[in-house]
């Protein structure tokens, strides 16, 4: 038995995620600035980063740091909740389709393919036109389409596992489908599911930012990284910090999840 080398990618990703969660939780309390109200009289003329306002202020006189941090809380909460929805639905569908095969597989997979064919943006715009934009709508949009890649990956994994000897043996001694799925197949999917979770979280963050960018995200005044980027377009030459800091925060968060996904994918690949 050989001990695998320390997984630096995973460790870096986790460290970045922990740092991000810690900053997003503690910093707003420490900063003690309302992200919704003006902190300066400089309205209509954003202030550049300075000692008092390390990330500068926006055109409405609000502190950009305070807004980025609160936006981080909102975006991470949405990404994590959306990931939970995608995993719940995706793993369930993938397990059933992959294990039972036959008409169950055909039904679930064709449905998955239909959903994969629906353009995400059009669906989001339609839903936003029908319902008022809200965090729940965002979750519904991301959840509605985000589970499909999870379902496909899990199904492929389950199809391979169900032919393994330990599953055949369990079936031979009379184990029920429920027991085989719960006790034998699901635990073997753990590493894949964690990897998929990290990938889904990073995608959710980007989708959340994209939808907020086009005005379909969490409604103002609650800040979100995507809308901060969208609102700063006008000022990209006069006040580039308005675009720089939320952009950097979003990239940092996506990178953290991608590193975790990459780090989790490696032991899985080694075992294979």
């Amino acid at each position, binding site marked *: 038995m050989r001990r695998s080398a320390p997984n630096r990618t995973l460790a870096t990703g986790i460290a970045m995620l922990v740092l991000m969660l810690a900053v997003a939780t503690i910093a707003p309390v420490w900063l003690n600035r309302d992200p919704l109200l003006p902190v300066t009289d400089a309205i*209509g003329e954003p202030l550049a980063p300075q000692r008092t306002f390390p990330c500068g202020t926006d055109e409405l006189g609000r502190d950009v740091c305070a807004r980025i941090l609160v936006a981080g809380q909102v975006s991470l909460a949405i990404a994590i909740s959306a990931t939970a929805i995608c995993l719940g639905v995706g793993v369930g569908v993938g397990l059933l389709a992959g294990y039972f095969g036959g008409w169950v597989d055909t039904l679930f997979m064709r449905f998955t393919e239909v959903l994969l064919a629906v353009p995400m943006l059009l669906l989001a715009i339609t839903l936003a*036109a029908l319902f008022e934009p809200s965090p729940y709508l965002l979750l519904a949009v991301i959840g509605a389409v985000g589970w499909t890649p999870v379902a496909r990956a899990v199904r492929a994994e389950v199809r391979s596992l169900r032919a393994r000897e330990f599953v055949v043996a369990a079936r031979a001694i009379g184990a029920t489908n429920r027991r085989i799925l719960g006790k034998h197949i699901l635990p073997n999917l753990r590493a894949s599911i964690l990897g998929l979770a990290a990938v889904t979280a990073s995608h959710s963050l980007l989708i959340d930012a994209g939808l907020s960018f086009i005005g379909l995200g969490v409604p*103002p005044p609650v800040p979100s990284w995507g809308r901060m980027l969208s609102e700063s377009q*006008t000022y990209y030459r006069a006040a580039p910090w308005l675009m720089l800091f939320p952009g950097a925060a979003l990239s940092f968060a996506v990178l953290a999840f991608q590193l975790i996904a990459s780090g989790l994918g490696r032991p899985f690949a080694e075992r294979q």
Partner: protein
Amino acid sequence: MRSRLFLLCTLLVLACRQQSPGPASDSDHVLRLADQDEIPTLDPARGYDTASWQFEDLIFETLLDYDDKGDLVGEAAESWSASADFREFRFMLRPSRFSHGRSVRPGDFAYAVRRVLLPSTQSPGRDFYLGLLGARECDSTACDVPGIEAREPDLLIFRLETPDLLFLHKVALPFAAALPEEIVRERGATFSRNPTGSGPYRLREWRAGQYLWLEPNPYYEGAQPPSLAGILRQTGVGEELAWMQFLSGQLDVTGIPTADFLHVRGDPRWRERIHTITTLRTQYVGLNCSVPPFHDRRVRQALNYATDKEKLVRLLNGRAVAAVGVVPPNLPSYPERAPVYPYDPHRAEQLLRAAGYAAGFETTLWLRNDPTAMRIAQSLQQDWLRVGIHVKLRPLAWGVFLEAIREPGRVPMFLLGWEADFPDASNFLDVLFHSRQVGANNHTEYRNPAVDALLEAAARELSASARIQFLYRAEQAIIEDAPWIFLFHPSTFVLVQSRVAGFRLHPWRPPRVGRVRIEITNGHPPEPHSARPRNASGR
């Protein structure tokens, strides 16, 4: 090898053609403009927006027009007179010709107005001319309006059912521009994209989504002969791109992006070339008087006190004037008014407490999904939060938004603006606050019989000063009732290249770009020469 070379050359030529921003032009005396959106139509009966009116004004002629001061002057009419009871208006036409060569006759103006009145034309300007004798009997089969009499060769008479002091302004609207009936009939629906008029310019080419190109009308005989070799208006150029094109000398006239405004205004290089005017527009938040809590006047007044209008003006970099009422401050011969609702959150809280909303309330502000509107709305959100009013924003596409606010009782509060068609307070007060306009333009469902009576008295009154007094009293009553939060009157700021001379902004009409001149001096300034409209092959 040869075929490959040919393919490469073809691709290069195609690439060059696609990069070309406009049509061929061999003259420096072409005025270059750009805008994001396409011009909706050039049919005077259908256009009712700034872009359409700007170019209709160049292609067509109306009987009357406004000079730079805003006074009515003759355009196609040499002289005109109104009867003492303001029910009959006579216009003597000067000789003029359409851009295809035919002389303009009084019947061409009569045809244009009858066409607007035809229900099948679906003209948004139909209401303006319903006061003509017999206009209401106009239906899809017959539109023989006895109130319009065209006497060849040069007399046109309009007769109205009731007196109308504003009728001269109505004939100055592009809806009443002369149209050649034979061409309109021949081209049918395509007339809106291929118009013929008697204005100083005519259409040379219009490529949808790319550009519109006007050239001088060779038959034009009017008082404003074309001073340019052409006018080129690019489409699909957003504010930022237009600004960059302007800086590199590819555009002659542009707006100033919000983020660059203060820097441009402070720069001595640009200061001389900035043109500004406060428009006849009012930006407001409409409060639906039939929806709680806005059915209570005290709540509406509280919101007016809780709104920091000066902050909004600062947010717009000073490109607005804080509103004290409905009517803009620069309306000719209208009395000055003192501010009724200064920014006073304490007074707002008192009023809310008196109305039973000491703990505040929650509501939704509907608005157009547009960056400036969103910025204004977020500033309002901040102000109202201070007095305990939590407002959610509901940004929507323009069409959906307009449809929603027209639906009675649906929208509690909305952010909107109104721009006058002509300089008269009734174009604000009567159109937006008379109870008969509920379901049409009175989106706040405001009903006050006293205001209705004052507005009706103003409509009947033939003395201009007495009429203004009625309108002024109506406005004071409306301000007291506060169905709106009176925000500001936007100012327009436009920057022009130094080679453009004679550029003027108009307070209620798009800028008259056909009247500018291009002055080119050797060696100075550099930008116009480097920015000659490139020809179709990109040379």
